[in-house]
């Protein structure tokens, strides 16, 4: 595919959003929709610029990103530990898996009141909630990945005398990597979701707080700007994982999305 046709391909993706933006601007300009309910894109750019220049937005982004990072790191690490134990040991599976399957059935937002009671309204309950959100996708995909490792490849490890840790790191871990990445990516997107939930409920800083603030001061432009920024951050952080995935999983023999 030539560079030109790639450019044309991605240009096509911009047609619909740009048309919608133009329609939006025109609709508000013509007075069909109230500008206080749906501020036009030009005003949003203005708001974004104002927030960005006085440093407020950067502060919100920073604190929210830190919370996601911390919660995701904790949740994913725990999921790796528990998942490895459950995936590799029948004993551990028999003891642990039913409990985690039961915990998974709890809608994660139901934890919020309890977390607030136990941990106060500081950072701890927010990060814990995000960690819970990130835990389950990573755990489930990791366990499924381990349990689906090709018996024939494990046998190859056996022929070469691999046991215990060597067998895990040289056969199981690489074989599980595709599933692990699927889990990490959905875990990360859930982490952003739970961040918003946590910050909507009790926060004085962060993008979720910006959403609440916009609602309370009847400033739809703040709300929409916060939404856009959240979308960008989610996409950006997923992009990092996606690039790592592409690099680490170049060996995969998969359909590349184009029919030959």
């Amino acid at each position, binding site marked *: 595919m030539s560079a030109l046709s790639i450019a044309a391909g991605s240009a096509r993706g911009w047609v619909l959003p740009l048309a919608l933006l133009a329609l939006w601007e025109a609709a508000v300009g013509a007075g069909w929709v109230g500008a206080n309910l749906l501020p036009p894109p030009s005003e949003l750019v203005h708001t974004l610029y104002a927030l960005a220049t006085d440093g407020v937005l950067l502060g919100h982004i920073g604190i929210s990103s830190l919370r996601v990072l911390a919660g995701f790191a904790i949740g994913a690490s725990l999921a790796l530990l528990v998942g490895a134990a459950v995936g590799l040991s029948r004993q551990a599976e028999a003891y642990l898996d039913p409990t985690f399957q039961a915990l998974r059935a709890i809608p994660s937002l139901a934890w919020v009141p309890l977390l607030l009671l136990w941990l106060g309204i500081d950072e701890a309950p927010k990060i814990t909630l995000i960690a819970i959100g990130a835990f389950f996708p990573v755990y489930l995909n990791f366990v499924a990945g381990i349990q689906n490792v090709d018996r*024939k490849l494990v*046998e190859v490890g*056996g022929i070469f005398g691999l046991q215990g840790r060597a067998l895990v790191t040289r056969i199981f871990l690489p074989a599980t990597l595709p599933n692990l990445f699927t889990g990490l990516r959905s875990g990360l997107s859930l982490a952003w979701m739970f961040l918003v939930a946590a910050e909507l409920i009790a926060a004085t800083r962060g993008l979720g707080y910006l959403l609440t603030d916009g609602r309370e001061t009847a400033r739809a432009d703040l709300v929409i700007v916060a939404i856009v920024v959240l979308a960008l951050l989610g996409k950006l952080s997923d992009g990092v994982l996606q690039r790592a995935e592409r690099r680490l999983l170049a060996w995969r023999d998969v359909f590349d999305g184009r029919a030959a």
Partner: protein
Amino acid sequence: MSQPLLQLQVEEKRFRTHRVIDRVALDIRAGETVSLVGPSGCGKSTLLRIVAGLETDYAGRVLVKGAAPQLHSPDVGFIFQEPRLLPWLSVADNVGFDAGRHGGRHPRVRELLAEVGLAAFADAWPKQLSGGMAQRAAIARGLFAQPALLLLDEPFSAVDAFTRMRLQDLLLSVAAHHGTTLLLVTHDIDEAVYLSDRVVVMNGAPGRIAGEVAVPQPRPRDRRDPALARAEAEVLTLLDGGRQEHLDTAADIAAAPPPAAAPVDGSAPGFLARAASRASVPA
């Protein structure tokens, strides 16, 4: 040679209550190439897995270089029916897997890849190889640890006939170069006779040795050599003498009503008429 490289006496091997091997004894001297042929289910692959140390639950006594077989013995290499390359390692790292992480950097890897004609593919992923190339890489991996005895479980059954002939010649030359003793299991009588000094014929079930055919022809051999054809005939005789249980469904087929010539398209009487006249021709 005072002591055979492999001394195998398996009294019995059971899978649950099912007996798959019944009193099989086989000795292999260093430098020999021996094939095990027999119908599927005669226990020949199981025998190979016992020698490789993959099966430990059997009654009998097996000695490789005078010691009981164990997994990852430096004396024994194993090549599977499929290449079973690890897809996340480059071809070179697969060949040098035994040397640990980054085993592909081991100098012997380059030599072996050159011997199997894959020197240009050292850094390729396994997914980029054809079936025959992947199996060549697997042969190189099997030889990496320089085993005295290389076990092959139907190594060429998954490749086409032309590739198979090339791989057979490759295997012979590489094994001769390294002085490796070969024990291979195959369904292919051609292959067994062409490759081997001795063809051990098994029948089942439970698996027993029906007999042995020596193939003394020197190498390189000509595939058209009538002596090889005669050896094949001997192997076939031994197989038939074992009274294989054929899956005979002729009676069921005769009893079943003939398939109705269902009109696919009623508007084409010409087609139906042709089909009917063809059906009436005795086969």
